[in-house]
């Protein structure tokens, strides 16, 4: 189980260096338009890839996962807050699962 601490410390060091190096070393703007654009798109691509198709197996049933996914998409598209989107997605899945377990 000591390996878990090595994992935690390794990721902490990597993440900290990413944050600290630019803030301490770089004081000029990044000139490369490609790198600037790439860095801009990275979070969107990462989060999208992490969300789908993993969200389909986030709960015990495909149907409840789909319900949560749909609710989250609709609310997010209407610019609801982070908390509302996450909470309602869970609630939708929970309601669907209640029906599934009764059936």
């Amino acid at each position, binding site marked *: 189980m000591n390996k878990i601490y090595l994992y935690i410390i390794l990721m902490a060091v990597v*993440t900290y260096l990413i944050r*600290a*190096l630019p803030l301490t070393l770089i004081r000029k703007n*990044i000139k490369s338009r490609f790198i600037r654009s790439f*860095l801009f798109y990275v979070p969107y691509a990462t989060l999208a890839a992490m969300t789908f198709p993993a969200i389909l197996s986030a*709960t015990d049933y495909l149907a409840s996962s789909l319900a949560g996914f749909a609710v989250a998409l609709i609310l997010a598209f209407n610019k609801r807050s982070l908390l509302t989107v996450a909470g309602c997605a*869970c*609630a939708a899945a929970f309601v669907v699962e209640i029906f599934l377990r009764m059936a």
Partner: protein
Amino acid sequence: MKVGSIDEFKQGCKHAVPVCLGYLAVSFAFGIEASKIGMTTFQAAMTSLLNVTSAGQFSALEVIARNGSFVELAVLQFIINLRYMLMSTALSQKLKPEVSVGHRLAISYGVTDEIFALSFFRKGELYPLYSYGLIVTSVLGWVTGTILGSVAGQLLPERLISCLGLAIYGMFIAIIIPDTRKSRALLTVVVSAMLLSTIFTYAPVLKLISGGFRIIIVTVVVAALAALICPRQDEEGSDE
């Protein structure tokens, strides 16, 4: 005065209250997931305290759960958290040059999407004490939520936990979807990343690639193509 007054610190704390609440909910989900793969509450809390990165921590769980390699974990964290480099770079311009390296190192600890947004759009000068207020309040929520989630994960009934697994994805969707309304390029990036990720998950041979590397490959390919085909205008870069 370079550090700022105690009022700066108080303002930072106050402005970070919504972030603190949001973090409570998200890290609650992280705590649950962490307990699912067998992490103790102390280990989960330590992960949150030392990393303060939602996407990074969630993705790390997957690697840790299947005893993945250290190299894979390091590369995964590097790619997923690469965006912090852009944010740190932007913040380095916002801080006055006379702010010392010590303060810069301390502020670096708390560069997250939300704290960055509050610091960067702070009117007037950005003082280290304001940043510390933001960081202390946000991290308090982040670690507390993790502990509560980890304990709850061991206590709550399975059917409730099953649904809470959606919270993190709901959060990701809430972050990326609203911006796709403003930009065709972003919409294409999000849809392509989801499609490519689906192909990598189910296609023969490709599905053998581990989850962590799948996300790295999809991210680099999609973001690089988007940057080539649809580079950002300079004036757009400031409105993130």
